[in-house]
């Protein structure tokens, strides 16, 4: 199995729902708490597994805004794992999920240097590296009903811009979406072979107008002939 996410940039409205949902699930989750520094003072900050950035493509007035959520890509070639000296970082053989064993991490930050996608954040209070767990404590919890066995960020997304599934299965929803919508990986040139894929904005279908455009335009009331319509 190769579990991961598909993010649909065509519909992400940048609401941050997924990011906060991740925060609330995971602060009491397997690698929690996700510490917040100066939560009620200057420059509040904290540990997040998922952040939403926004970009502008093109110049006004031909600009488009793209909301861009990023969390761990659960890369196939996860250098973050290979560089970790303690073995705290690992990629699960059974499903490809990349995790950090909180009991083994020494907080050297090295894995975060190896991650091109900014997916790892050090928790200063615990001194350990934390990252998206793909909600490992949800997706296998058989006491949850099947739909709920998905990451918190996926079930919460109001725009359904996030999809979870097995990329090894060509018939999974994620594989299909990637095929149909031209899902792409970020910075493929670095060779991490990230599992997560992004769906580009759809191309709008052109709407014809010649069939509703009259050759002789009406310019006064007199030109109308009443149609007989029964009330």
């Amino acid at each position: 199995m190769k579990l991961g996410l598909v993010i649909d940039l065509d519909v992400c409205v940048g609401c941050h729902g997924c990011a906060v949902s991740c925060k609330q699930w995971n602060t009491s989750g397997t690698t929690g708490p996700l510490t917040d520094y100066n939560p009620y003072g200057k420059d509040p900050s904290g540990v997040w597994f998922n952040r939403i950035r926004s970009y502008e493509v093109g110049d006004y007035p031909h600009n488009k805004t793209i909301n861009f959520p990023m969390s761990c890509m659960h890369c196939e070639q996860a250098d973050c794992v290979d560089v970790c000296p303690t073995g705290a970082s690992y990629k699960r053989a059974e499903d490809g999920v990349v995790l950090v064993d909180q009991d083994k991490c020494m907080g050297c930050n090295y894995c975060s240097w190896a991650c091109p996608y900014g997916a790892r954040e050090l928790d200063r209070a615990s001194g350990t590296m934390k990252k998206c767990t793909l909600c490992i404590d949800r997706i296998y919890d058989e006491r949850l009903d099947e739909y709920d066995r998905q990451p918190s960020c996926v079930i919460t997304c109001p725009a359904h811009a996030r999809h979870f599934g097995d990329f090894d299965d060509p018939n999974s929803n994620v594989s299909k979406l990637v095929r149909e919508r031209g899902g792409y990986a970020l910075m493929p040139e670095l060779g991490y072979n990230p599992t997560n894929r992004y769906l580009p904005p759809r191309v709008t279908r052109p709407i014809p107008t010649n069939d509703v455009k009259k050759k002789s335009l009406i310019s006064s009331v007199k030109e109308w002939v009443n149609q007989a319509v029964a009330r």
Partner: protein
Amino acid sequence: MSALPEFEKRSQQEVKATTCYMCACRCGIKVTVEDNKVRYIQGNRDHPINKGVLCAKGNAGIMKQNSPAKLKSPLRRKAGTERGAGEFEAISMAEALDILEARLRKIRETDPLKLAYFTGRDQMQALTGFWASQFGTLNWAAHGGFCSVNMAAGGLYTMGHAFWEFGDPDWDRTKYFMMWGVADDHASNPIKIGLEKLKRNGGKFVGINPARTGYQAIADEWVAIKPGTDAILALSMLHVLLKNNQFDWEFLIRYTNAAYLVVHTPNQTGHGLLLRDAEGKPLVWDMRLTAATDGTRPSITPALFYEGEVQGKPVKSVMTLIAEEYLDEQYSPENAANICGVPAEQIERLALEMAHVAFKESIEVDVPEGWTDWAGRKHYKFIGRPVSMHAMRGISAHSNGFQTCRAIHFLQIMLGTVDVPGGHLAKPPYPKHIPPAIKPAKDCAPNTPLKGPPLGFPTGPEDLVMDAKGKAKRIDKAYSWDAPMSNHGLMHMVITNAVKGDPYKIDTLMMFMANMAWNSTMNTAEIQDMLREKEVGGEYKIPFIVVSDAYHSEMVNFADLIIPDTTYLERWDTISMLDRPISEPHAACDSIRQQVIRPDRDVLSWQEVQLEMGMRLGFPALTNADGSRKYESYKDFIINWQKEPGIGFLAGWRLDEEGNEVHLRGKPNPKQWERYAENGAFFEMHLPEHIRYYRHANKDYLEFAKNAAWVGSTHQIVIELYSETQQRFKLAGQGLYDGPMPTEAHHKERLSTYFNPLPFYYKPLEQCRIDEDEYPLFAVNQRPMFMYHSWDSQNAWLRQICAQNFLYMNRQRGAALGIQDEAWCWVESHHGKIRVQVKLVEACQYDTVWTWNAIGKQKGAWGLKEDANESNDGFLMNHLISELLPVKNDALDNVTNSDPITGQAAWYDLKVKVSPAAEGETGTWPTFPALKPLPNAHVAPDILRYQAHKAVNLERPLADVLSRGSVHDGQRGTANKE
């Protein structure tokens, strides 16, 4: 795969359904609680509103419950200290209630108008309004007057439902969606769900907005409009539709008043009113009879276009007037482009695209059992024009918002997309007859409830709430000549008027859920001064201020008595169909909140407080003849109170005569709360197929609705393209009305200029009274999707997303003005000046600047530390806005800066100039003195490690550590499936 540990101890957790209140969208949530602490808040998948999803705010509920700004007990301003100085003493709830009772009793016994009771983000106006009318004061309203009454009025006076929370696009079927001036809105999650559906179905989404963020980010086409000019854009599109003969003849003839005949006798009494027969029925010209006939009759053949003489009077059909008006060159795309900044070709193309989708891609929904129209005729299809729209405060927060809103509805009606498949659908209990048949109460007397609700829908000058001399009777001057159709009151005028004693002085101002000393007020600093203002004798001009809040807001600081509310997770609450409910277009719904967390402080829900006060004061609806209490508690009241037999606050699980559970109408059911709790805290009743569309003219629906008390009659709801109500007020302004008329010149001008039976564009009022060359930039706000007004800065998670707002400016405009990215700048309006940090972006129309709403905070409020970014770098646009029109030394100087028709606050009419601040001038300005911490305030921690239980780590076995990398060591990280 190795077995995973047990991460969650389910046996120690409990999951309860309730309703989110991180905003007014009212999504269904399931809250997992562990040891009276929230573990997780999840969307309720069965819930009609959110179908399982949650937004950022809803997901941050834990940090609202955990807020250090939570009020801990009732507080009283210390005797001898100044109001606003923040010197409070904690008192018990019992004492607080006694103080309140004594005060209210005296007012009610003498002059109930001395109580002004206004509510902000109130979700049960049916209850607060009920309370006010039982108390007997006219002086009640919720926030609608400064929020979006233009949308409500524009819709309810045109098609019997509206944008805002009254209707929704048919997300499943629409193929073309146009969104006007919306950033997040009340249907926060539903819009997000809907937009995705639309795009997945291949529909086109056009976003009309000066800013391109959020929803507009995913729009297929962005229309960067100049603020305040949407009416001309809409009417220009109408012009294009007319020119190309692209409108729905059948829809107009059957369902609207387009064929009605209008008397055309300019400058005479009665001009512009509908021609009626002896029974008062509107007349149309019938083409077969070649005579005028009752236009409400079925099976006639009305002429859509008619001009002639009937009953000896010159008449024109409504459609003739419409065509005459909008075919005019002033509405040509070229002229419109000059005003709204949208290129002419784009205007024309958009109009034609809509015509194409409406008429060439129309849809038919088969109804095998048939649907019956108002005349009793059966049809087996619903014809749909799959073009839909949504509009909100970008339209309504302008002083021309009412007419603009109507202009947008005109487009929908011309295309035949109202309550049809793929169009804009009403949500039960809407549509209502036009307008809803409730008139505002006019009179009050000591110890006497009002005869009707304080707010209603006037249809002519005789419905206004004024004394014989034409002086306003309400403290906010609603329903006066200043704002005749102010259906939601003018909350933004209450403090100003009360302090001025214009129209009179009050004794007590009671506020619930409104931060009127800060972000929900125009002109913040001066309002704070007004709240402190004293008479010569030393008494405060507003003698007593009572605030119900759950948190340490800026408003709390100005209270004399603070009644601390519970949080939304701590209380029992109702979201009723008597109010704006949570219904979906095809389902009647309402819901409850149930207590999921036990409060750990001396707090009482405002619902309970109101009920308690009402019973103590002897409200007839709450007490028996002998003065004893009718209800034990809020829950008991909700079950047993009935508006009319069979109709109460909650529509689900009532009882029929035999004691079976029935919905919508029925006797009180003692088990009602339990039923709601079992059902996920909501009630949903799907409408049968055949009453889902054309409900304004759908007989079965209208009968169904009458039974549910949603409408008062089963007559067809005729869509009012032509508004006679508007014309009546216009005539009054022109001195041609057969009834009350204004005497002052500026009132006459106001009525004759801005009221019009057909919508039109006019330049917003403020902009007509300032030098636009000096203030060249439009300045507007947007709701951030991750914050709710002022109340989310206390949220440790949400404020990390945005603790400081910027003024966003077009990059090219910035370059032209010599403004660098992230420079501190002065922003000046006719009224005030602020210092802010500018960000240059593409996502902003060239002549506009915008910022996120309500990020700036007063130091010390909301449990934040004094160095918090919100109060040192963040800012409010409100300092630049005035609740009065710009001073020009004329009769309009003291007139509200609002829509002249509805009294809607004109927040977005603001124009400013921006210039770089001097070297070294950084930080926000103005700043305000820090609020004192409340006596028993929680201490805000420096580090937060919230956790409902200790984490269960997933351990990696040693053998695995030693043996496996990701792929480098030849072993694929991902094992092949066996």
